[in-house]
């Protein structure tokens, strides 16, 4: 038992070290487009892990990710843009105090972005989760829409429909993967702890969980707030990575992308989320091709915007129809399963 823990600790250290070396290599050798995709992968994994915590492990169907991301992105952007830049940026109406003057380093800004999102999560969770969680989907969907409308209509805070341009691009590969690593460690710790067992118990049988002395409302609320925190962090990183944000960016489609990763990877599987995060991010980029005009011989097919979402919606439908548990189901790839695989191979030889 103890030996195994030590072994896993060492192996995990080696894996993280190897991955860091890979990032060094990538930074030097890969072109900007590929680096951008790698960055998006990190951000998407953060977002999907946070949704998996909420939906997969705690069993709360939430459709509010775009809203939490928007809160995170706007909070962070307002904090990292220097006051002078904001003066030039707010052309509809001047920025309101304190948004006009506040300024903070990137790390602080991302943490505050997460905290603001968590606060929003608590504010919706307080009334809605009291009802037992059945209405969370619809309530969070409405919440995300409200956030977007607010972003459109509070020009002194958000610059209205114009949004922000030229947000400092601090979110490089190290920040993104650093946060991805932190999210991963925290979510893994949580779901593998006895606290995580309690969350899964609430998901599996709420009545029995209550009979075991678990305050299901409080546990759900906490898990929802932690998930919202990392959705806010993901939004903050995304804003800085893309350097522009506006209300249109935070449509339901954004939530849908994250949901797709979680469902495809497997509700309640962390390794599944990581695998699906990589695959789907790459596919989403790659499928941009289908939206461009294509000429095949004499035929000219005009680009159809939104085509890749059609493709993806169909893919999601197929997953739900034919492999509802996703790539991994609730299973995980661990060092044990990896070794077991090798051992089996060895025997066959």
């Amino acid at each position, binding site marked *: 038992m103890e030996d195994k823990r030590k072994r896993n600790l060492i192996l995990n250290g080696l894996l993280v070290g190897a991955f860091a070396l890979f990032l060094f290599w990538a930074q030097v050798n890969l072109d900007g487009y590929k680096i951008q995709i790698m960055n998006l992968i990190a951000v998407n994994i953060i977002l999907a892990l946070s949704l998996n915590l909420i939906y997969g492990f705690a069993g709360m169907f939430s459709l509010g990710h775009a809203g939490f991301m928007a809160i995170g992105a706007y909070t962070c952007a307002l904090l990292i843009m220097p006051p002078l830049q904001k003066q030039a940026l707010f052309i509809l109406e001047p920025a309101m105090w304190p948004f006009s003057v506040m300024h903070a380093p990137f790390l602080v800004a991302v943490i505050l972005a997460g905290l603001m999102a968590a606060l929003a999560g608590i504010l919706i969770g307080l009334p809605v989760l009291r009802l037992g969680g059945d209405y969370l989907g619809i309530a969070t969907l409405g919440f995300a829409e409200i956030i977007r409308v607010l972003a459109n209509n509070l020009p002194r805070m958000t610059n209205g429909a114009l949004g922000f341009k030229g947000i400092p691009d601090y979110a490089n590969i190290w920040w993104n993967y650093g946060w991805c690593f932190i999210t991963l460690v925290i979510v893994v710790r949580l779901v593998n702890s006895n606290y995580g*067992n309690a969350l899964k*118990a609430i998901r599996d049988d709420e*009545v029995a969980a209550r009979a*075991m002395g*678990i305050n299901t409302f409080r546990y759900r609320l906490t898990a929802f707030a932690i998930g919202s925190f990392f959705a806010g962090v993901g939004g903050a990183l995304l804003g800085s990575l893309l350097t522009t944000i506006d209300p249109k960016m935070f449509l339901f489609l954004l939530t849908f992308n994250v949901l797709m990763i979680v469902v495809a990877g497997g509700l309640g599987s962390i390794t599944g989320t990581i695998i699906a995060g990589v695959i789907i991010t790459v596919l989403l980029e790659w499928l941009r091709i289908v939206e461009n005009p294509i000429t095949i011989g004499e035929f000219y097919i005009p680009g159809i915007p939104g085509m890749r979402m059609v493709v993806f919606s169909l893919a999601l439908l197929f997953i739900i129809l034919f492999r509802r548990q996703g790539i991994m189901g609730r299973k995980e790839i661990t060092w044990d399963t990896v070794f077991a695989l090798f051992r089996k191979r060895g025997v066959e030889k």
Partner: protein
Amino acid sequence: MTSREIVLETKDVTMRFGGLTAVHKFSIQVQKGRIVGLIGPNGAGKTTCFNMITGFYEPTEGSIHFMGEDITGWPPHKICKAGIARTFQNIRLFAGGTVLQNVMVGAHLRQKTTWWHAMLSLPSFFKEEKEIREKSYELLDAVGLAHLASEEAQGLPYGAQRRLEIARALATEPRFLLLDEPAAGMNPHETQELMDFIKQIKEKFDLTILLIEHDMKVVMGICEHIWVLDYGVTIAEGDPEKIQGDPKVIEAYLGEEYLQNA
């Protein structure tokens, strides 16, 4: 029967669902360290009594006292924390977890470290997690399921699932244990084992036990005092001999079944 400290007392507890009175003026006193029973025909209101005692239903009228404290209307988790644990008539295990995890969830209630200790990977968290794991393992050992610790709870045979549910309830460190038809679906051999087992855990964990049971052998075999419900009304109470001889009980409940077996 010498009189002892009262652990649980219900006073004129009534539960109405719309026009239906499921339980009418249910009043019992349970003495410390006893095994007592609640019997009655199907739909008599036994499980409803359990649901009121454990906070799942709020009584329409009446009050419930546990260790001298009025717990009427408390939420289930608070009642469990106060020291009342239960099992369910239709076994309710956490299907997604292993046997050990099911017991650990029961033990979670008494755990001091929580989510932020886990998040920050504090040493106190790892230490307590290990203690909880060991404690849960010991409980599984006590109910004879230690060898199945890492199996999926869902896949266990019926009798083992019942035992696991009891182990999980014990993990909450109760003083008062409610068992809803623990022998249901068991063969005579398993039932005999279960009776010994219930007596055993009562001694070992210093419990008071209230159980609902249809199997008269179990009820008459281990209960020191019995209440009989019929259509929500308490029609008799007393020790096994008295209940067996009570004409009202024989008519309402023991009736055919009892006479056939006798």
